């Protein structure tokens, strides 16, 4: 087995330090796709407005998915929209993260039973990193979701895929 084939399970000092810096860079500059769906999008806008200020955490909206790191699914995903969201997700460059904001995006929310045109949970289409509950979640809740995502990124390792 060659040197490079070996899995670095233990992680030596060089790799961990480099990894910390890389993770720090990723978690401190999460650019979001400026993309809103429904009611939650208004709360998302409120979160990036002056009172709550997403920019404190380094989150700025980018209009193009090519330059974004996170996509906040803010609102009800309908069947007509789901395919577009999937494509949007595919247009983003790796590493990319998803915050599912609000009950509708988590599981269909109040539309779970009779919503003939509502996708019951965005996780049926794309993988989700953080779920933020609420209908709609308060900006504080979204901020907490972001902090949870940062925590997740901080513990990522380039040596071994975390489960």
């Amino acid at each position, binding site marked *: 087995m060659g040197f490079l084939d070996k899995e670095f399970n233990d992680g030596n000092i060089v790799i961990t330090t480099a990894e910390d810096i890389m993770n720090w860079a990723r978690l401190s500059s999460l650019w979001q796709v400026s993309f809103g769906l429904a009611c939650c999008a208004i709360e998302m806008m409120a979160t990036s407005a002056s009172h709550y200020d997403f920019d404190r955490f380094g989150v700025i909206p980018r209009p193009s998915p090519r330059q974004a790191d996170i996509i906040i699914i803010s609102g009800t995903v309908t*069947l007509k929209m789901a*395919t577009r969201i999937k494509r949007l997700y595919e247009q983003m460059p790796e590493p990319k993260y998803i915050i599912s904001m609000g009950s509708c995006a988590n599981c269909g929310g109040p539309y779970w039973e009779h919503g003939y045109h509502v996708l019951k949970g965005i996780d049926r289409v794309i993988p989700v990193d953080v779920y933020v509950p609420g209908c709609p979640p308060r900006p504080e809740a979204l901020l907490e979701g972001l902090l949870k995502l940062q925590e997740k990124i901080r513990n990522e390792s380039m040596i071994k895929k975390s489960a």
Partner: protein
Amino acid sequence: MKKAEEIFQLLKDNFPDQNLELKTDQPTEPVILIAPDEIEKISLFLYKNTELLFDSLVLLSGVDEVKANLISVYYHIESTSLKHKIVLKVSTDRNNPEVVSVTSVWKGADWHEREAYDMFGIKFTNHPDLRRILMPYDWEAGYPLRKDYENPEFYQGMKVPY
């Protein structure tokens, strides 16, 4: 400003051979019943007549009356200059609902009619662009607001029910 009875009388006088009917026994709103083929003609009259001047279509809504095996369309029209309003109603067969479009009278009817088509499958003849509007263009499972509508299990590989 005219009352429903006066409007109805005016219609009756101008369209003597039509099967018109005024219903005021409902709890709230007086309704004029009209045959589905005549709605455009009568609408044009209501729009043009100087005593009526119904220049605005407020709402067009389809209702599935499943017990009577009918599908009805309600037209809420209003005159912004004379400030009176009236409700028109046409009923058509549920199995093959067809109503004449009123887009030539009120342009605002365009999307309302498309929505009624989308939700109830009412075919508006003479409509310029009768496509689905809210549901995807390739939706094949029928018309969602009909009372006997059943949702499909999958749409484009996505599971629809919870």
